[in-house]
């Protein structure tokens, strides 16, 4: 029963997120608005951590698994990827290294400067 009630809270927040997206007419996905809402609910104490803790652990522990069907969607793009796999993979690889470097270094530098 505990898990079911916790799931209901999460779905309720997600539902509110979708509702807000439609009413505000913004192009931020309802899931992200839901995430912000849940964060605010926890901060304000309107929702206690225990009310969503177990379902959160379950969902976050299996996060990578939930991407399997999206990954299988690759099948639909076999042709495009077959023809251009070298540039596509090169762009992904180089860009990923650059993003990690810029993000990590920026934060490390700013934190160091603040503490010194």
């Amino acid at each position, binding site marked *: 029963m505990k898990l079911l009630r916790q*799931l209901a809270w*999460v*779905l309720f*927040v997600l539902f509110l997120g979708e509702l807000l997206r439609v009413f505000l007419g913004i*192009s*931020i*996905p309802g*899931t*992200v608005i839901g*995430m*912000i*809402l*849940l*964060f605010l609910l*926890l*901060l304000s104490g309107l929702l206690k*951590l225990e009310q*969503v*803790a177990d*379902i959160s652990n379950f*969902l*976050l522990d*299996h*996060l*990578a*698994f939930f*991407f*399997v*069907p*999206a*990954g*299988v*969607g*690759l*099948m639909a*793009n076999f042709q495009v*990827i077959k023809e251009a796999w070298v*540039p*596509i*993979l*090169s*762009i*992904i*690889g*180089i*860009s*990923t*290294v650059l*993003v*990690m470097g*810029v*993000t*990590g*270094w*920026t*934060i*490390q530098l*700013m*934190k160091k400067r*603040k503490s010194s």
Partner: protein
Amino acid sequence: MDHSADEKEKIIMKDFLATPIFGVLLSIVCYEAGIIIQRRWRHPMLNPLLLAMVFVILILTVFDIPKETYDLGGSYILFLLGPATVVMAVPLYRQINLLKKDWLPILVGIFAGSATSVLSVIGLAKVFHVDLEIAVSMLPKSVTTAIGMEISKEVGGVVSLTVAVIVLTGILGAVIGPFILKVLGIKDEVAQGVAMGTAAHAVGTSKAMELGETQGAMSGLSIGIAGLATVLIIPLLIGLLG
């Protein structure tokens, strides 16, 4: 006669598989197989998600099962990505003190990283002479699938290609991330987590969680913010592609 018997068998098999059970079960079995293989050999390229994708695609192809049949169950799993995105607020809330302490470096880092992602795709697409349609589809490569699909629709990309590129980026980020962080000398736990989440969204976060709770939480919080940042940045930079 042989031929028609063959056809008949095929139809029976497809009817038999045409329930959500097949897609869900196949996904779980393939993912568990991926976990077992990774535990056995411990090589970072043996990512359970990557292995599960390969196994599912191989099985569908070998047995000539249509992707629509698989998607009957696959869509139930995909549905859980919604609630999973929402509860990313929980690790963020648990780490509220770290966030309060370093909110400015975190925000600047995520915006710089997201801009780097978009700019590098634009620049590299020119270097490699990639078709405009592919380049546009790759713009949101570092954000979470839910946001990336919306961006792709908006800028005229091929949505399924965007999903493929996002998943590939996530897997690559998760696989090479810890190594890259080490080589680049990024030792700060907050910086490590934000770098993983900004570059490789939720798949990167699943790896960041293995590095530590701080890294996991920082990575998780970066997903939403990087998505927002990318939504804001792309309209400013997309003109450079033309």
